[in-house]
């Protein structure tokens, strides 16, 4: 066993077996650009209401797997996807899949904050309004409760009509988190959401994510192994587009089955 610099106790994570309560099933997933496979025949399950960290070296296909789950590759010219993804009763790649419903139920947070060029309040309300989810006269309350939930309310309550671009990077990312939560998603796809943020905001977001686990299935791509150790229940380790190991966080960090996983955890590769 070679846990290296991460040989600290894994905190709250004690689970030894992978969860059998599956939220997302990925079957023979390949993502191709032309003939080149960015993700090569990956099959996986993601557990219901748990945090699964997707880790791996640069170019391992972490983000590509994540973006396949809510069909973001549809919008990138040259990308093609093979295989199946099912989320509950949604067959994601079926020809008659409803993308609007899929993306209402599967939220996404990006590497850098990308608030809409609209007021802070509209950033939160635009998507729920588009989906017909805002009760009459309830927009102000919805806005306040979401901003409270992410801990942004006090900072922005006096300038809800102002520009989100006046906020700090961390505050903008929190706004994007609130915007995502406004649709009450079942699944949250997080693509290195804290990689551009300071440690304080990172810690804040991590504690929010741990709380969200109660109601949302969370998939988080991260470059930061310490972050995966702090917040994840399960870990998916990819290398060069292939699945290397899928284990509980406890097992992955302390007793990984694959030699490459142990090397990655110890910092010898990656």
């Amino acid at each position, binding site marked *: 066993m070679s846990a290296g610099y991460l040989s600290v106790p894994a905190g709250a994570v004690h689970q030894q077996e992978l969860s059998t309560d599956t939220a997302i099933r990925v079957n023979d997933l390949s993502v191709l650009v032309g003939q080149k496979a960015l993700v090569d025949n990956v099959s996986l399950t993601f557990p219901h209401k748990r945090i699964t960290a997707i880790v791996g070296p640069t170019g391992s296909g972490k983000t590509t797997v994540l973006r396949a789950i*809510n069909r*973001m590759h549809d*919008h990138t*010219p040259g990308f093609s996807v093979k295989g199946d993804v099912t989320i509950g009763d949604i067959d994601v790649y079926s020809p008659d899949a409803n*993308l*609007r*419903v*899929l*993306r*209402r139920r599967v*939220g*996404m947070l*990006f590497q*850098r*904050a*990308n*608030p*809409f*060029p*609209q*007021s802070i309040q509209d950033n939160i309300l*635009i*998507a729920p309004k*588009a*989906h017909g989810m805002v009760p009459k006269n309830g927009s102000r309350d919805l806005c306040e409760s979401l901003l409270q939930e992410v801990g942004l309310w006090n900072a922005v309550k006096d300038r809800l009509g*102002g*520009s989100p*671009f006046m906020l700090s990077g961390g505050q*903008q990312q929190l706004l*994007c988190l609130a*915007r*995502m939560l406004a*649709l009450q998603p079942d699944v949250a796809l997080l693509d290195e959401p804290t990689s551009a943020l300071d440690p304080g905001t990172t810690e804040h977001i991590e504690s929010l994510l741990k709380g969200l686990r109660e109601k949302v299935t969370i998939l988080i791509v991260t470059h930061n192994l310490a972050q995966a150790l702090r917040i994840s229940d399960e870990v998916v380790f990819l290398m060069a587009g292939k699945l290397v190991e899928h284990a509980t966080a406890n097992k992955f960090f302390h007793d990984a089955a694959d030699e490459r996983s142990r090397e990655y955890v110890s910092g010898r590769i990656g």
Partner: protein
Amino acid sequence: MSTASELTTGDRILRAVSAVAGFLPGGIVGFFAVVMILTAIPAIAFSGLNFFTGTTFTLGNLYAVTTITHNGVTAPHGAAYGALTFIVGTFATSIFALVLAIPVSVGGVLMLTEWVPRRLQNTLAVFLELLAGIPSVVFGLWGIVVFGPIMAQHVYPALTSIGNVIPWFKGPVGAGEGLLTASLVLGIMVIPIIASTTRELLRGVPVLAKEGAIALGMTRYETTRVVTLPYIRTGILAASLLGWGRALGETIAVLIVSGNALNVLPHNIYSPTSTIASTIAALLDAALTDFTGSAVHALAYLGLLLLVISLLTNFAGRLVIKRVSTGALPVGRGI
């Protein structure tokens, strides 16, 4: 900072050339302004405020020997320089042109980039550039021979029914030479300017920003409205001002299709009109035969006015852009 002794001959030449090149644009504008003002001064003295309020613009009887003198300036008998007709014509045609061109260009380009395959887009972009390259005299000829008559026969009569709501649309519609035809032709000439700029602006909208909306299940239309348009709003404004400048100064096409109204304000949108630029072109030949020289001064005054209007719209535009871009928009600041 390098001292003079460290500079090689090449450096010195480069420095001199760049200094000249740097000051040249400002110098040319300054020189123009000074010459125009000096040439216009006699006309300013002769006309006074009547220049802005009068609708009668006539060079007077160029063949008579009698003259009139006003404020120490001599002009042929009967001369009067009231430019209100042209001022109204200039603003009316150019603003109508923009009202037509902005939605068509922005809407058209948005549709192209969102719904047409990339390869076809590039082909269509070539046509846009071709449209920009058509000489304005060709637009004028086409306007008076083909476009104007067709509009007057088939389209304008239908528009007169709007006259019940907006009186300006009431007939008669005339033969197709007038304010509306000039505006439409100007609009078509302005479309390539606004459309090509919009196309560049759309390419500059960050993918990440649009993905934020897509990932929330929003449609293309919603993404365009919520993300794309706010991002390019300032740029469209700037492009529109560029187009407005073109429309304000456009001469020969307007001269051909405007109906060349002198001394009368348009009474509906089909009426003949004249712009400042087209009037200068139309009257310059006659003005040069004015033995008192005052007609040339009057045209210089028109030219000066056009210069001032162009500069003012330009400055106003910059001001608006500056104010808009410091507001809710990410333009010009890091995100």
